[in-house]
């Protein structure tokens, strides 16, 4: 959806701002503070924006984001020089790395070996 269209200017933009500022207000409630409502609202709005142009691509785009996220975790893990040790599941690494990093690295290593 181009920014300079009527649908964006009079439809998407006001709705997006209302939703976002509503999320900002809701986030001020202590109970909801950790939910990251504004970020979730923004991701939802952004997906809507992208889907407007190409609804077919949204699933692929979501998979792409997950791939980038996993690769990012794996790279961070490699940087910590843990990658291969984690794959071997040594006790030492279990203490140092968060579980999700270990799982992602293991999954990527498996994919790579296959």
């Amino acid at each position, binding site marked *: 959806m181009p920014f300079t269209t009527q649908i964006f200017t009079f439809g998407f933009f006001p709705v997006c701002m209302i939703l976002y500022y509503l999320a900002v207000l809701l986030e001020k409630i202590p109970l909801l503070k950790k939910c990251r409502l504004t970020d979730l609202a923004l991701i939802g709005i952004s997906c809507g924006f992208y889907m407007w142009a*190409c609804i077919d691509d949204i699933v692929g785009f979501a998979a792409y984001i997950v791939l980038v*996220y996993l690769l990012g975790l*794996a790279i961070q893990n490699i940087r910590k020089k843990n990658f291969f040790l984690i794959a071997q599941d040594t006790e030492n690494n279990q203490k140092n790395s968060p579980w999700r990093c270990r799982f992602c690295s293991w999954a990527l290593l498996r994919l790579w070996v296959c």
Partner: protein
Amino acid sequence: MFLGVAAIVGLLIHFKYTGLLADLWNLLAKDNLSGKSVIAPLGISFITFSAISYLADIYMGKAAAGNLIDCALYMTFFPKVVSGPIVLWRDFCTQTRDREIDLTHISDGVSRIMIGFAKKLILADTFGACIAKATVVDVPTAWLVALLYMLQIYYDFSGYSDIAIGLSGMLGFSVKENFNFPYLSCSITEFWRRWHISLGTWFREYVYFPLGGSRRGAKRAIINVAIVFFLTGVWHGAGWTYMLWGMINGVCNIIEKLIAKKTWYEKTPKFLKWAATMVVTFFCWELFRFADFSACLEWLKTMFGLVTFPSIPYNWQYYLDARMITLVAVAILGATVFGLPKVQSAYKWFTQRTWGYLIHQILLVALFVIAILFMINSTYSPFIYFQY
């Protein structure tokens, strides 16, 4: 890291460059391979660059990996997802948790969006509609259309960037400037520091510096510049004209590096350097405008009177009416004189006064209303950079 980047770039090549690679293969091997045309997802080039920035920044230790929400927010952030500006992960990651939303940010954002709308709808779209109409033309019209395209591409993309920066500001994000009056540049090197700044920054951080930059001697620096500009051309599109456009810019950049310290170059008046830069840029945009060489060559021939048409529906006077003259004058002044340091400081002085600020805001609202009227009445509104 390299496997990850290879996977991401592989996807980009699959979607965007299969046809070009098949052409290249056919040319070299005299084969008849057909490049399957795959419909590329919207904004694939910008999305790929964001993904590479995410991975490279983690690899280089410039930023830590985010969680899935951070990563999804960075990749999908709607003001920049389709056409940039390309935001680096290292700049974005701090803002995922800690950003300010106050009235100043919101009012600045709104002002910026209004400027963007005016640039895009009043100037760029009017020029674009005129360019689209002018297909069979006389010599003066051919030159006029080339000038209009030079203005259109600037106002189109800088208008889009203004809207994206304004929207980001309203959402509490700070996005760096993407343009800094590129048509004031006195060299191609300077032009690339002022034009599509976020793309230049990306290439500098993730290609030029990792290749060694200028630290490995003059020869290596020249090779690195050539690689960067070749990639810049290829990034813009899977066409030979884009490649040539990138290479011309690269060659000019290298020549400028070689002559920068020569006495005669230093003594050359600034105005001449500016004029030479604008001439190169003017003709380079013609390469950028056409998808294939033959169409570009035909247009250049028309410009120099080497091709004449038996009957021309409208001559230059039809296109250059009073409204168009006014808009072209405003566009030229806005892209050049308005960016001069003295004019900029006068503008800042003016907007810092209460009355000046009020007049400024009233003018912006008036421009925005006119832009909306243009939007309602016009049918032409594609952003040029959407295709990348």
